[in-house]
């Protein structure tokens, strides 16, 4: 009796939500561009074209791209996605989507929040997908000449992960972007991507940061050094090289950052708001292009000082640009809110103005850990 009931229960479930893998179009990237009509949304979805990835096809001489960019339009994002099934035999499957790219003109004019709702609301897409702004058309990025990794959107994912070796670009996922967007003070940011080269050989370059305002409209960009400054402060600088002048010889040193931490400490005294930024970093000597006498203690100390100075300079430039844009990319406002929740009410309405004139004290303490495998350089140039 019980087994009968169980059998019925299982069969009544009836394979709900069943999706055979063969009936899915694995979507790995989405790009939004300005459409011709202002009411419509133009979506380019990149799906993997398995036919060209099959071993037999790879060997064949016809070089078809291993992806297919489906271009659809619709009134909402969801509408676009459903309209794609008018073109694609397989249903778009969003669980493996890696990136969303917005074109710069779209981001500047319309803002991006209306495009993000679907990706947050629907069960399939992940909240950990990267969001980027492209200089130029976003759909072009998905058609770029993808070297080493044949699928452009996966290629871009790798580029974003590679930013940890330089610190010259930011990596923002949907979760962080939405959090910043929902914050009262912090300005949302996205990675910035562009295509370099021309003709067939159009390869990507991930560089800098796009800055948004609280209405999700893009208001400006950060260059590479400014991006680094931001990453130092928000404690996302994983690794990268600091180029400093070599002490005692005519050349430059590359210091590889091994560890870093950034803390924001707001201080409110006599109605005067002051932000203290504490950076702790340690580095190793990565390369030297002249003979630097690192066995000399003074040289060691002076390299260390220059390291701290370089970091301070990154942050200062970044702060200048942010204050110019009146965009609190560092999250100073949130830090103030956390420490002084009562006073924040008074500060909040004028935050943009306060931020643009904010006094920031930068405290950088660095350590130079080791010269790596050799002590003295083989390069004898002084």
């Amino acid at each position, binding site marked *: *009796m019980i087994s009968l009931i169980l059998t019925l229960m299982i069969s009544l479930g009836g394979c709900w939500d069943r*999706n*055979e*893998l*063969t009936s899915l179009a*694995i979507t790995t990237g989405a790009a939004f561009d300005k459409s011709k009509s202002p009411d419509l949304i133009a979506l380019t979805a990149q799906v*993997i074209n398995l*036919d060209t990835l099959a071993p037999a096809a790879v060997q064949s001489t016809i070089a078809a791209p291993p992806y297919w960019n489906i271009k659809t339009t619709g009134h909402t994002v969801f509408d676009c996605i459903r309209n794609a099934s008018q073109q694609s035999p397989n249903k778009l499957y969003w*669980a493996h989507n*890696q990136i969303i790219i917005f074109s710069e003109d779209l981001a500047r004019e319309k803002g991006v929040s209306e495009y993000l709702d679907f990706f947050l609301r629907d069960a399939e897409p992940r909240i950990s997908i990267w969001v980027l702004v492209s200089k130029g058309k976003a759909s072009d990025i998905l058609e770029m000449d993808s070297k080493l990794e044949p699928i452009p959107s996966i290629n871009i994912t790798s580029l974003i992960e590679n930013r940890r070796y330089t610190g010259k670009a930011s990596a923002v996922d949907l979760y962080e972007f939405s959090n910043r967007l929902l914050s009262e003070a912090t300005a949302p940011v996205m990675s910035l991507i562009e295509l370099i080269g021309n003709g067939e050989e159009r390869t990507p370059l991930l560089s800098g940061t796009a800055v948004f305002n609280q209405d999700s409209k893009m208001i400006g960009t950060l260059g590479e050094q400014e991006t680094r400054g931001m990453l130092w402060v928000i404690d996302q600088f994983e690794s990268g090289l600091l180029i400093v002048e070599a002490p005692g010889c005519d050349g430059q040193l590359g210091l590889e950052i091994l560890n870093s931490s950034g803390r924001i400490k707001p201080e409110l005294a006599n109605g005067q708001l002051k932000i203290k930024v504490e950076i702790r970093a340690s580095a190793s000597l990565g390369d030297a292009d002249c003979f630097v006498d690192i066995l000399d203690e003074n040289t060691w100390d002076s390299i260390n000082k220059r390291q701290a100075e370089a970091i301070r300079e990154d942050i200062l430039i970044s702060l200048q640009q942010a204050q110019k844009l009146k965009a609190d990319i560092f999250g100073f406002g949130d830090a103030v809110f956390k420490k002084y929740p009562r006073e924040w009410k008074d500060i909040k309405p004028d935050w943009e103005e306060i931020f643009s004139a904010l006094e920031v004290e930068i405290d950088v303490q660095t350590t130079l850990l080791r010269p790596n495998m050799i002590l003295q350089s083989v390069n004898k140039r002084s």
Partner: protein
Amino acid sequence: MFGFLKKKARAMQLQKLNEKEQNKQNTPQKPAGPALTPNLDKNLTILKSTLGNSPDIVIRKFNFGPRYCYKAALFFVDGMVDKKIINENIIKPLMYDMHIVRGEQRVPLADIGELRNILLSVGDVKTVTLFDEVVTSSLYGNSILLLDGFSTALDIDTKGWQARSIQEPTVDKVVRGPREGFTETIRFNTALLRRKILNPNLTIEQMIIGEQTRTHVAIAYLKGVTSPGLVEEVKTRLNRIKTDAILESGYIEQFIEDAPFSIFSTVGNTEKPDIAAARILEGRAAILVDGTPFVLTVPMLFIEGFQAAEDYYSRPYYASFVRLLRFMAFFLSILAPATYVALLTYHQEFIPTPLLITMALSVQGVPFPALVEALLMGLMFEILREGGIRLPQQVGQAVSIVGALVIGQAAVQAGLVDQTMIIVIAVTAVSSFLVITHTDAATLLRFILVLLAGALGAFGIVIGLLAVLVHLASLRSFGVPYLEPAAPLVIGDLKDSYIRAPWWTMLKRPQLIGVRNPTRQDEQLKPAPPEEN
């Protein structure tokens, strides 16, 4: 509704019980049966009529004694007896040596026992008086010496049929450890047990089960270690069996097991004396059945399937690793195809993107849903396995080769099955052989879980596993919880479960089995180099 059904069932049970009681009263206790008469010819006629004119029944009539005054007959079944004993140790002494012993004195034999005492050079000689006894023991290879003028006969042990010698069993093979295995003859088997445990407390009690086959069944246990309650329970359950035939210990197993409707076996079996001895030493009872090398041991725990004899003979570290490996393989063997089906049909988001692309590539163009594919391949493997086992070795190999080619290559090339599925099934197949005891259950579970995964995805797998867990936790084998030492948790016994602790740490017998005499060995047996002064 359930209440009504329950009542009805209960009523039917009571009715059956009543009928049984009445039947019992109708069949009175069997009488002892007719006794032998002093008349030899009459005895022989009765025996012939009892056993029929089978060609293997031999009646050797002869005269012996001074002036050949005694008329005697030797009665035995050809093929069951050792002819050499009959010729050299029975007939020869009677016909020749009697002259030497007694000369030509015509002192009549007072008692047939006298022959046994002075003439028959055979180990085991008994006197019998009943026809039933004569028939029973002659059918088990004994020879009966009947003498005219006496109403008792001599039952002489001349057992000597062709038997398989002691060989290494095909399962439970070891690299290190004894290689002998039980045989089909119960006497050899009890001897093998005795060779392992020389303690006089090793008790072997024998009984006969099977109305037609009259199979000898023996219970072996260690007095003072095995709890008397267990022995009583085993005897009660064995005595309950009233059946035609016991041809293998599997018959007994199915009559005495605790959970006849479970796919898991609650009675252990082994073909190796060392394993049987080890289980007896832990406080279990062994049931030996004549005619099969498989000895039953009770109670049985789930964990026994994961314990191999060699775990205890090799050093504990590798043994523990292999234990964990077996657990992994067991779960792999029941879960791998189900998980693959669930991933492929419901949970594509669980798979890392590069792996998904690889999988999608292998699935591409396959016309069947993953569920159908898994069922087909699973069935195909079971068919091949069954075919390989039953066929003679040479043909079996041919079947394996054809199967491997058909499954491995042709199916993939024809685009009927995806490659990843082949790998999954292969992994499943190999890992299902690591835990031989539970292979039957694992095979059934695998198919059930595949169906559940096909219908409900990971949710179905979880439901299925949960149901199995609840079921396992509810099982008892002769009063011992099946999942002991995991549930109920018995900390001490965990030393011999997922890992195998060094011998010098296993001070106690399994707690719920060896209750009667829990101490296995002294403490402080840890070996150490001698202390320097």
